[in-house]
C-alpha cells in the first residue's frame, strides 16, 4: 500500500512538473474532487472559452441534448476568432461553391489538403474534415453565419462584398504542381468590414437563443478531477469569488493557444520569443493547455506556429528577391506568406532582406518594411549591408541570368513574377520577426482524437475531458499555407468535441 501511495505521488509530482513546464509556471491547474466541499452549480457540459471552437462545441453539445455553460475569462466573448478575418477553409462542393459555379469534390479537397498538411498526426482529421466539409459549411450557415454570393478572384480575404476566395495561394502556385485552382476560403460577410465579427456575432446569438449560458469575466482556474482520473468540473472565478462548477458529462477546453505567454514561447518557440506581432486575442495565454497537462494530457506540435511575412499586401514584393544573411535566396518570393514567414522565422534566424529595383518598389512602403539601403549599384547595396563579399552580386547575377529566360532553377518562382533585378536605384528592405509587422500565433496543444477526446501519452483518453481549437494540435501545421484552416479546425472539431461531451459518458 505504502509503495502504491509512493508511486501515485511520484506520478502526480511528475504530472505537476510537466504541467509547470508546459504552462505558465503554475502547477495548480487541477484539484482533486475530495477537496471540493460542495458544488456552487451543476450542469451537463462546461465549455472553457467563447471563441469559434468554444461556441461551436457549445451549440453541438446543446443539439445533443445537454445543458451547457460557457465560461469566458475576458469581459467580451469571441476569443481570437472575433478578431480574425472569419475565413473557414471548406470545400468538396459546398452550397456556396455550387452557387458560384466552383467545381469541387471531397477527393479533390483531400488531395490538395494532404499535399500541404503532411503531419501523420493530422491525417485522420484531414480525411474526416474533407469528407464532411459540405455538411459543416451547411451547419455554419444554419447557425446564422452570413455569407453572400460573390466570388473574389484574389489570394487575400476581401474586406467586404465577397464570401469565397482563393485562400491557399492557388492563383499563384505553379498549375502543374497544384492542379486546378479551387476557391475554398469561405468568408463570413454581412456587409461590414471583416468576417470575424459577423461570424462570432451569429454564433453567439444562436447560442443564447438555444439557452446556452455564456458567462463573461469568468476565468477558469482549474479542472476538478475524480479519484479515477475523470474530470468532474472546474473551479472558476465569478464575481470575484472562486466557484466550484460541476459538469456531469464533460468539460471542453477551448481557450486558445499561447502566443501571449512569453515564458511558454521561450520554452517551446524560442524563435518567436521576441516577436513584435502576436496575432490573437489577449486570452491566448496557454491556460487550457496547462490545465490539460495538469491531468496528464499529451501535448503535440508545441514547436509549431503560424508566422506570416508582411508581403502579401504588396504585389511588388514578389518581383524582388529575398535573401538571408549570407546574401542567398532561400524561398520563392511568390510563395504563400505563411511559407515565407515560416522560412524566415524558423530557418533563417528570424530575419531576411528584400532587394528590389526601381520598377518594383511601389507599394512596399505601405507594407511598413524598413528600408536599410539605397544605391545605384548592387555592389554598393552589398557593401552597405554586411553580406559576405560578392555574395549578393553572385545571387543577383544568377537570378537575372535565368529570370530573362522565365526560369527559376532554384525555387521555381512563377514566370509572371520573374523579371531581372535591373534598373537603379536599388533598395534593400529588412524584414524580421522581432521588428516588422510579422503576425504569429501558436499551433501546438493538447492531443485529441477526432472525437475531441483528450488523450494522454499512452493514448488513453482522459475521461470526460475534451478540447478544440488552438488549445489543441489540430488540422493546421507549420508552414501555415492554407488560409482559413485554423478556423475550419476550430469550428469543425469544436463540434465533434461538443457532440462527444453532450452525449456524455455513454459514448
Amino acid at each position, binding site marked *: 500500500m505504502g509503495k502504491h501511495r509512493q508511486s501515485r505521488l511520484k506520478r502526480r509530482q511528475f504530472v505537476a512538473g510537466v504541467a509547470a513546464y508546459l504552462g505558465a509556471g503554475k502547477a495548480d491547474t487541477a484539484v482533486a474532487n475530495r477537496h471540493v466541499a460542495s458544488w456552487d452549480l451543476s450542469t451537463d457540459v462546461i465549455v472553457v472559452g467563447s471563441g469559434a471552437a468554444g461556441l461551436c462545441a457549445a451549440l453541438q453539445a446543446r443539439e445533443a441534448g445537454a445543458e451547457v455553460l460557457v465560461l469566458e475569462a*475576458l*469581459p*467580451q466573448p469571441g476569443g481570437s476568432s*472575433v*478578431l480574425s478575418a472569419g475565413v473557414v477553409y471548406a470545400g468538396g462542393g459546398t452550397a456556396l461553391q455550387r452557387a458560384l459555379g466552383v467545381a469541387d469534390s471531397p477527393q479533390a479537397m483531400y488531395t490538395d489538403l494532404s499535399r500541404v498538411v503532411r503531419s501523420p498526426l493530422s491525417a485522420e482529421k484531414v480525411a474526416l474534415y474533407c469528407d464532411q466539409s459540405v455538411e459543416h459549411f451547411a451547419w455554419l450557415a444554419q447557425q446564422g453565419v452570413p455569407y453572400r454570393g460573390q466570388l473574389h478572384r484574389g489570394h487575400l480575404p476581401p*474586406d467586404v462584398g465577397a464570401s469565397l476566395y482563393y485562400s491557399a495561394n492557388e492563383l499563384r502556385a505553379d498549375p502543374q504542381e497544384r492542379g486546378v485552382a479551387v476557391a475554398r476560403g469561405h468568408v463570413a460577410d454581412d456587409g*461590414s*468590414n*471583416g468576417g*470575424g*465579427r459577423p461570424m462570432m456575432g451569429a454564433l453567439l446569438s444562436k447560442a443564447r437563443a438555444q439557452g446556452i449560458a455564456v458567462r463573461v469575466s469568468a476565468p477558469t482556474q482549474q479542472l476538478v478531477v475524480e479519484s479515477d482520473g475523470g474530470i468532474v468540473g472546474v473551479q472558476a472565478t465569478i464575481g470575484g469569488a472562486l466557484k466550484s462548477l460541476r459538469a456531469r458529462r464533460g468539460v471542453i477546453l477551448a481557450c486558445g493557444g499561447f502566443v*501571449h505567454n512569453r515564458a511558454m514561447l521561450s520554452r517551446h518557440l524560442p524563435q518567436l520569443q521576441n516577436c*513584435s*506581432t*502576436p*496575432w*490573437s*486575442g*489577449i*486570452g491566448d495565454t496557454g491556460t487550457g493547455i496547462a490545465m490539460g497537462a495538469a491531468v496528464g494530457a499529451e501535448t503535440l506540435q508545441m514547436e509549431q506556429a503560424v508566422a506570416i511575412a*508582411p508581403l502579401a*499586401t504588396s504585389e511588388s514584393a514578389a518581383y524582388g528577391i529575398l535573401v538571408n544573411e549570407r546574401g542567398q535566396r532561400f524561398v520563392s518570393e511568390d510563395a504563400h506568406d505563411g511559407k515565407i514567414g515560416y522560412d524566415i522565422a524558423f530557418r533563417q534566424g528570424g530575419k531576411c532582406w528584400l532587394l528590389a529595383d526601381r520598377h518594383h518598389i511601389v507599394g512596399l512602403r*505601405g*507594407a*511598413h518594411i524598413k528600408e536599410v539601403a539605397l544605391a545605384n549599384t548592387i555592389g554598393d547595396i552589398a557593401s552597405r549591408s554586411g553580406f559576405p563579399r560578392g555574395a549578393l552580386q553572385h545571387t543577383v547575377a544568377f537570378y537575372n541570368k535565368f529570370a530573362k529566360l522565365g526560369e527559376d532553377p532554384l525555387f521555381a518562382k512563377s514566370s509572371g513574377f520573374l523579371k531581372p533585378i535591373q534598373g537603379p536605384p536599388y533598395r534593400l528592405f529588412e524584414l524580421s520577426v*522581432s*521588428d*516588422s*509587422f*510579422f*503576425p504569429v500565433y501558436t499551433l501546438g496543444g493538447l492531443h485529441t482524437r477526432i472525437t475531441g477526446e483528450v488523450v494522454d501519452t499512452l493514448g488513453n483518453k482522459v475521461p470526460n475531458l475534451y478540447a478544440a481549437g488552438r488549445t489543441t494540435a489540430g488540422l493546421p501545421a507549420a508552414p501555415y499555407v492554407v488560409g482559413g484552416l485554423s478556423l475550419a479546425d476550430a469550428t469543425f472539431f469544436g463540434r465533434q468535441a461538443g457532440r462527444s461531451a453532450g452525449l456524455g459518458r455513454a459514448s
Partner: protein
Amino acid sequence: MKSVTALVLCGLLAPNLPAMALEGDAERGKRVFNQCRSCHRLAGSPGSSFGPELGSIFGRVVGKQPGFEYYSDFFQSASFVWTPTLMDTWLKDPMSMYPASTMMSRGVPDPQSRADLIQYLKTVSTDH
C-alpha cells in the same frame, strides 16, 4: 547608492513614472504598435480593421469615428478628446481604467515603450 540613483535617472527603476516624462522614439514606437495591429490599423498600412483606425488620433473626441459602430456605451457618450497624456494613462492598464470598454487589451505596461508608441502615433497623426 549612487548607482541606484543613476538607474532611477535612467528610468530603469521607475516603473511608476508617467511615460510623458520620458522621451519617446517614433521608430521604436512603430515596433510597439505592431502588437496593436491585431485590432487596429492606420490608413494605408497593414493591420486589422476590427477596432477603429488610429491615424490622427490625438485631438479626436473619444468614441466618434464615423463608420465604427462597436464602441461601448461609455465611449459613445463620452465627450473628452484623446491627448497624449490621456493615452498614456489609458495604455498603462486599459481594462482597469475603463472596464466597460470593448477593447480587450493588456495595454503597454512599460513606460518607455508607451512613450515610444505615443511618439509614433503623434508622427502618424501628422502624416495622415
